[in-house]
């Protein structure tokens, strides 16, 4: 039963990786999906990717389960972790069949999303304003540069003192890092815009407001989306830190709690789940970015080039 489940999980992983590859190449529209899948599965680079996974899990298995190295002797091996993860009746109470597992995922996702969206909604306008208005830039940049290096965990006591309850405090701490990343990347995006685009827009009769929406915003967009991807990742790692200290649910809490109650396989389940969700959320930001910047895609793909 368990072996079958593990095999199914492995197959799902391989298939998932392959589909991701196909998606990245974005050729789904040209060739049939089945054929594309076959080519991807047999491609050299996909096999290398797969080999990377196998080597990683293999090393884990060799050091922990086979050799039982002294430093690692309290850790669970890959087989233990996966079978616990996929077990309908898990020994430590957490697997894909338990409601608790999804409650933790839900709380973490909710907090990370809330913090990310808040950071995006405030960070992009703030960054645009800094890049757009010299006075505002002079007011705010030194402050931002001073506050930004303060690690998120250092904000936890302050957040708990000021905000009602631990929930807003965790979200606030998560928000802070994401906000600075988004703001500074947006600012960089505005600064990267060639002066001639501003001049051309003015020649063509654009008002300041027109320039903001037709030059500043689209011109900064590539950097903004790079910033959002980083900010998404940053949200996850500061979230987990916050959850370890001030929460009753969430994957960060789950990992820390499992450590204190000696439920070691659950630590690994929590970590792996974070990896998957974090990666998926960054991928989502990337896909949205691509949709919004069709012009860059067109520019980068040589096939669409027209000659005189």
């Amino acid at each position, binding site marked *: 039963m368990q072996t079958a489940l593990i095999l199914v999980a492995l197959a799902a992983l391989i298939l998932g990786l392959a589909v991701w590859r196909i998606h990245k190449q974005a050729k789904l529209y040209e060739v049939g999906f089945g054929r594309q899948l076959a080519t991807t599965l047999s491609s050299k680079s996909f096999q290398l990717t797969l080999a990377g996974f196998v080597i990683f899990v293999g090393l884990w298995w060799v050091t922990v389960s086979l050799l039982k190295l002294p430093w690692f002797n309290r850790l669970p091996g890959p087989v233990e972790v996966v079978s616990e993860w996929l077990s309908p009746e898990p020994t430590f109470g957490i697997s894909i069949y338990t409601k608790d597992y999804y409650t933790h995922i839900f709380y973490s996702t909710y907090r990370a999303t809330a913090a990310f969206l808040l950071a995006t909604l405030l960070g992009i306008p703030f960054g645009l304003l800094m890049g757009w208005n010299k006075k505002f830039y002079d007011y705010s940049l030194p402050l931002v540069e001073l506050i930004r290096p303060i690690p998120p965990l250092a904000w936890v006591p302050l957040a708990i003192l000021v905000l009602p309850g631990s929930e807003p405090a965790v979200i606030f701490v998560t928000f802070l890092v994401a906000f600075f990343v988004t703001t500074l990347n947006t600012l960089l995006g505005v600064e990267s815009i*060639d002066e*001639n*685009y501003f*001049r*051309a*827009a*003015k*020649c*063509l*009769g*654009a*008002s300041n407001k*027109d320039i903001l929406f*037709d*030059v500043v915003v*689209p*011109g900064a*967009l590539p950097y903004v989306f790079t910033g959002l991807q980083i900010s998404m990742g940053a949200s996850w790692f500061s979230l987990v830190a916050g959850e370890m200290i001030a929460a009753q649910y969430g994957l960060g809490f789950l990992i820390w709690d499992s450590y204190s109650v000696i439920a070691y396989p659950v630590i690994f389940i929590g970590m792996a789940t974070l990896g998957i969700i974090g990666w998926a959320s960054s991928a989502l930001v990337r896909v949205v970015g691509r949709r919004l*910047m*069709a*012009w*860059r895609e*067109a*520019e980068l793909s040589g096939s*669409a*080039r*027209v*000659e*005189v």
Partner: protein
Amino acid sequence: MSASNTAPVCRAADGALSVRDVTKIYDPEGVHVVALEHCSLEIAAGEFVAVVGPSGCGKSTLLNIMAGFDYVTHGEILLDGAPLATPDTRPRPGSDRVVVFQHGALFPWKTVLENVTYGPVVQKQLDQPAAEAKAREMLARVGLSNIEKSYPGQLSSGMQRRVEIIRALINDPKVLLLDEPFRAMDTVTKSASHEYLLELYNATGKTIFFITHDLEEAIFLADKVAVMTTRPGHIKLAISVDLPRPRNYRMLASQEFLRLKAQLVEAVHEEAVKAFQAGEREMA
């Protein structure tokens, strides 16, 4: 290129530029740089004037002042008798004098059609459908019919520059300011671009102020070629080009063309030597 090159030149009634004793001093952080000094030039309505001179002589400075990107320090520039740039007026770019930039400044995030319709739509001169109809008609005139939905990054440099000139002309400006628009092009693309530009000039009769360092290009295109001195720049001499219009490439080998070229080579060489020596003094 196409048959309409034989159309007679119609000259616009307005767009006369008068550059009077213009001096421009850059003074960032106390370093006094005199870019232009006592620079004067008369450009009649509908005239095609090319300005040549050594690099860094202030050609682009003059263009930037005309465009409204920069202040003048002394002197004034008049457009159809009204002050355009004086030391007391705030520089203001406008759609009556549109610039086409050396490296191109089509918005890469807008399609060709969105770029071309940008001026009339943003100024609320035309609504979107009317602007698009006009843009399509003008693009077709320079052989760019099927690229409306392309992004600038997908076009060759020759096509990009043609689109940019159309984006300027659709606003019906009084003056077209061209800052070495064909500089980075290969010979074939360049000569094709010349023919398209002349065709558009013949059709619209706009005043054109054209900066270049290519003497043949200047003579082939312009009614008047002005030579600028090395920095501090002023107009050293202006030579009328009496080659008939419409022009064609055979004129490049005519006696008159060669005579003008010899005259210009002499004047420009003198300035180039001065610029070179000044550069060596600065290095020493």
